């Protein structure tokens, strides 16, 4: 089961987690500074419960950390307003649930540069003879 949330801020507010009351309650019960592992749109990462406000009241939201922060910022930039899935990662499950790790060693700048380089490989004279692509052939040496 997974919740859904709309990409609308640099953080995820508890009240914007829909569809999975258990997950919403789990997030709401976190102490300030406590972290939780979530798969957001299938991408695994760590999220941190926000600190208390100056008045001492809890702030009902979680912030992405590390690679999750980079991933979430990119989502905010490119897919603001879209709805994505949010599910709890149970690290004791042997990694068989539906998520994958974003690669923290590759920056968004590097990704963009690689995409530009990839798209620029058109028009360099590489051409097939019209034979349909065959996957098994693509595994021959």
């Amino acid at each position, binding site marked *: 089961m997974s919740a859904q949330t709309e990409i609308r801020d640099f953080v995820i507010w508890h009240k914007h987690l829909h569809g999975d009351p258990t997950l919403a309650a789990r997030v709401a019960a976190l102490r300030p500074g406590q972290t939780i592992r979530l*798969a957001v*749109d*299938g*991408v695994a990462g760590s999220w941190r419960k926000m600190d208390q406000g100056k008045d001492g009241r809890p702030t009902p939201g979680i912030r992405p950390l590390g690679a999750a922060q980079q*991933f979430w910022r*990119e*989502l905010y930039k*490119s*897919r603001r307003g*879209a709805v994505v*899935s949010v599910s709890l990662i149970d690290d004791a499950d042997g990694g*068989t649930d*539906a*998520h*994958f*790790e*974003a*690669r923290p060693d*590759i920056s968004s700048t*590097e*990704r963009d*540069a*690689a*995409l530009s*380089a*990839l*798209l620029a*490989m*058109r*028009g*360099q*004279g*590489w*051409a*097939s*003879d*019209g*034979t349909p*692509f065959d*996957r*098994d*052939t*693509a*595994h*021959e040496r």
Partner: protein
Amino acid sequence: MISLDSNVFVYLLDDAEPEKQAVAAEVIARAAALRCPVALQVIGEAQNAARRKLKAPPFVAAQFARNILTAFDVLPASGDDADIALAQLAAGRLSYWDAMLISVLRRHGCKALITEELQDGAVVLGVEIVNPFASGGLSARAATLLGA
């Protein structure tokens, strides 16, 4: 979450297919913006097809595949995926490599595969097969999935 097959990347490089090349470029750019992952298997198939099908030299094929590897997150295969692929092969339902690819995608939560292979619209091992190439350009279903 959706994913791209190696044939989409190969068409990007293939100057003999300008219409499909244009569609492939749009699909790849949109998929990258959506942070769609690709199976690790696709990296190997792309470099192989670039060398063998398009006759690109190894250093070009390697750069081609490396660009994909950097621009997209990759999904690794597991022993469970191989087990499923062997079962599909034994039952005569799918080729080993088709089943391996789709099993990896399913295990990572992908709902659709953008590909020219397999039957457009079919749901294979829980993954929808979507052919992006239509007579007028990008297919309607692919456009919907990619937010075009």
